[in-house]
């Protein structure tokens, strides 16, 4: 009796291992069927996830607050300084915008469009060394499609990679599989923003002779397939020239705080 049960368990195990390897291979090669099943599963779990996320949110906010508390004074002073400089920039920007719109009209070029944004709630989070993703409570029924950019209040958060009927998965820019076209705002040099297993965000393909400084703002480029240009990504926090490497190692500190994601905005085309 014991031996037959043992044999049964081993047979089941072997069958399941082969099944898993087959599923992994099909998923790795990319399949419309697996994407559809994924979308349906997201939709089934969305109502429960949303309720549970709201239930646990006070606890996660508590943990975030503990971390934030110790840097509050320093952050306040930095924000005051930034605010004062931004007020001055705003006045200049308004006149430049008016001038820009008038020139575009004169030359017959389309006026710059504002983005159509949909505010969504984060209902799930999944992170390991190879993935950094969030689940949002909007899907194809709300006009969300794969490839749409997702912003937080401070900057770019990521991109929609899978859209179900009522929920979608967003790959964050810190995900090691994330790769976006980017520009240095001041010098207009093109590069590629990539995530990493450590959680750092790198700006790749900037040669040592190109001008880049700590504090430079990074925005999305116009050559990306999916994202509109000039979306804020982050600020250069570290620059290193590595011996034997044709490009600089540039780390970008994102404007968006990924620890405290609660609401995001999907950029609908």
């Amino acid at each position, binding site marked *: 009796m*014991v031996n037959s*049960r*043992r044999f*049964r*368990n081993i047979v*089941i*195990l072997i069958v*399941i*291992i082969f*099944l*898993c*390897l*087959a*599923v*992994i291979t*099909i*998923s*790795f090669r990319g399949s419309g069927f*697996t994407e559809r*099943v*994924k979308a349906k*599963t*997201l939709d089934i*779990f969305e109502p*429960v*996830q949303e309720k*549970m*996320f709201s*239930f*646990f949110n006070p*606890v*996660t906010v508590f*943990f975030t607050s503990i*971390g934030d508390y110790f840097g509050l004074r320093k952050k306040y002073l930095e924000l005051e300084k930034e605010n004062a400089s931004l007020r001055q920039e705003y006045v200049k920007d308004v006149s430049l915008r008016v001038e820009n719109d008038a020139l575009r009209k004169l030359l017959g070029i389309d006026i710059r469009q504002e983005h159509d944004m949909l505010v969504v709630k984060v*209902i*799930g*989070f*999944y*992170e*390991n*060394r*190879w*993935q950094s*993703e969030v*689940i949002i409570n909007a899907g194809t029924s709300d006009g969300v499609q794969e490839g749409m950019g997702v912003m937080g209040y401070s900057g770019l958060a990521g991109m929609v990679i899978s859209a179900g009927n009522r929920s979608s*998965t967003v790959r964050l820019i810190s995900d*090691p*599989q994330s790769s976006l076209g980017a520009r240095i705002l001041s010098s207009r040099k093109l590069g590629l923003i990539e995530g990493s*297993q*450590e959680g750092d965000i790198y700006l790749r393909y900037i040669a040592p002779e190109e001008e880049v400084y700590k504090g430079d703002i990074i925005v999305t480029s116009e050559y990306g397939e999916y994202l509109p240009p000039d979306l804020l990504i982050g600020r250069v926090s570290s620059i290193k020239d590595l011996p034997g490497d044709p490009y600089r190692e540039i780390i970008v500190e994102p404007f968006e705080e*990924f*620890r405290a994601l609660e609401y995001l905005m999907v950029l609908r085309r």
Partner: protein
Amino acid sequence: MKIINKILHFLLLIAALVIQITFFEHLKMFNIYFDLVLIILVAVTLIDGAFYGIIFGFAVGILLDLIAGDLIGISALIYTLDAFIVWRLVEAGLKYRLSSQAVLIFAVTETNIIAAALIRYLFNYGISLPLLGVELLLRPVFNIILMALLYPLIRISLRQRTESFEFKYKDKA
């Protein structure tokens, strides 16, 4: 009644999956690594036997990958292996004590981490060895803490099973 218990245990695993995604995954941002699904799966395997542990591990793993994974099937394979390891360790004579459970959780957590890294490596994903080392050290500790918090609750609700555990398990396996 037995079938109802099995169904309840499976639903408990599903609940653990939802809590994992909505709460415990968020804590990883603060370097706190709890794997609630793993702990509950080990408990279910100990109580219901290897057969149900393997099946439930596969099902929950597939669901986890469908909801939040990029490669579907990795978590299913890993959780199936976890159930197998629990079965083999108990068959080898591991008793139902807190210290033994800590060894069990340590073994399956390390297997999880190494298996996930190996499978990703085979499918051409990069591996950071320093990060792997840190995970191998930290994650078992957090899982053992979670196990120590949860197992008394499971024992209270399943007192009848755990009293005759040592005699019942060998039959179920």
